[in-house]
């Protein structure tokens, strides 16, 4: 099982775009999640003193991923935290999808953490999830 992500130069001139891929839908979610955490702060500089369980259900993967990424942005603001990791599992059931994740991080601390961009939201601009055989790919633009 593997995932990858890369940042894209020319998709959003004033904001940040990334492409994530995975060899399963779950790995795709892991890749997109890692990319967003990297946009906010360098994860290796973040401690693990804060945790939040997240359970999300949606009828399709497109909506589920955007809702999940938006939830990460929500907790960044609502709890004033940045993130080290977000292990997750994804399951298709009853015509929909369920994701269980644990957001792990720490309160913002500019002295100890390498902070990057304060993402304001996850947009649907050029948002596209594709499946090619076993490989999944998504393009995401975040507003900073």
């Amino acid at each position, binding site marked *: 099982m593997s995932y990858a992500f890369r*940042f*894209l*130069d*020319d*998709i*959003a*001139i*004033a*904001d*940040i*775009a990334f492409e994530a891929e995975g060899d399963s839908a779950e790995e795709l979610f892991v890749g997109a999640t890692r990319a967003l955490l990297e946009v*906010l*702060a360098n994860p290796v500089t973040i401690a693990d003193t804060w945790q939040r369980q997240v359970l999300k259900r949606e009828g399709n993967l497109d909506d589920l991923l955007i809702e999940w990424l*938006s939830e990460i*942005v*929500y907790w*960044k*603001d*609502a709890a*004033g*935290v*940045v993130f080290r990791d977000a292990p997750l599992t994804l399951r298709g059931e009853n015509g929909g999808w369920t994701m269980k994740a644990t957001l792990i991080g720490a*309160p*913002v601390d*500019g002295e100890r953490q*390498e*902070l*990057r*961009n*304060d993402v*304001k*939201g*996850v*947009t*649907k*601009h050029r948002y596209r999830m594709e499946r090619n055989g076993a490989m999944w790919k998504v393009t995401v633009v975040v*507003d*900073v």
Partner: protein
Amino acid sequence: MRLNTDMRVNRIADEVWEIPVSEKPGMLVPARVYATQTILQSMDRGVFDQVTNVACLPGIQRYALCMPDGHWGYGFPIGGVAAFDAQQGIISPGGVGYDVNCGMRLIRTDLSLMDVQPRLERLMTELFRRVPAGVGAAGAVRLDRSELTRVMLKGARWCVEQGYGWHQDLARIEEGGCISGADPSTVSDQALGRGINQLGTLGSGNHYLEVQVASNERIFDAATATALGITGQDQIVVMVHCGSRGFGHQIASDYLKIFEKAMRRYNITVNDQQLACAPFRSPEGQDYFAAMNGAANMAFANRQVITHSIREAFADVFATSAEELGMQLVYDVAHNIAKVERYAEGELLVHRKGATRAFGPSSAELAPEFRQTGQPVICGGSMETGSYLLVGTDRAVQETFGSTMHGSGRTMSRAQAKKQVRGEQVQRLMKERGIMVKAVSMSGLAEEAGFAYKNISEVVETVEGAGITRKVAELRPIGNIKG
């Protein structure tokens, strides 16, 4: 002339270009771009695609406009202006901008460069300490949900009542710092959750707090400058650029989802999902307008609390009260908003996204303070170049629904900028040029390097040449705080 579009673009005045309705199916009005030939050639394809998409929206009046600082945005281009019939037209979060009431504020002082230079390091440290910036930063003012509701209803007035400002500040804020019609019941719990810690915070991206100098040789209209409190002689001023933070963005995201469904019900189709809209007079449209007004008031309050922190920092460093330092507001103006205004066509809902209201002296809506000068317009350049104080004109009211530019506009993506320079390098080079920078994020600083932006002076010359704004003063940075 090579442009980043295949559409026909006709020059109809020195600084005005028009794309006729024949260039895209569904255009209801022509699109007009304000630009010199050089600026037009540097504009990305998104500007042309998006301004013509806007020209297709129901109820649009006269033209879909783009200012010379225009570039690609979500739905509308940044720099986009469009007015819709207030009865038959639509309202669109993509036309307001997701950072509702992102805007500019300028504060004057009686201090000169000679007073500040020896204490600049301490002043910048104090400002950096008192004005939280960057990822997840929480403001010094702690609110509960009921208090945030009052902020939504009262805007900067709430701040003045709580001691975070002076009563006379209010006359120098667009709409007196409080837009009527906000309704907290139209705002989601998620938006409240995101906004509750954010009052008095700068954010990141292109938002900043800048200490600047107004020199005699960069004042273009001394009488107007004096009337606005800009006296020159290396006078120190402070500029703030920020908005409603995650609170406003959450409102925009919430209503985009609602509008996507509503469009099917109202049989509206758009060329871009980010142009999701609803009839202004529909329940969904009215709810978004009420929520957006609440976010706009939160943004006025945000900049007011930041102003309070700035005044405290100056008072501390110079051991003199802010009143004695003459730290009055010059003006505070939104550049991401939709407002109902009256024009020849009747009552219109004017969307300005990365565009500033620029009412001329004859405008009855202006506070008495600005009936001689016209409304102040504050335009931020990149952190390496100057910014401008301008004033609106009566011609803007006639031609552009009382609108003009808001800043310099990017020419290079954040990822590209970061590949060319490191934040530490930007910081060092700026220090060599006499600009002290304090930043939460070094990668964010690299993304904001001056070369990633258009030349603001050329953008300003365009709007002055077009007669929709007049130059008053150029303001040169000496200290900058970024998230």
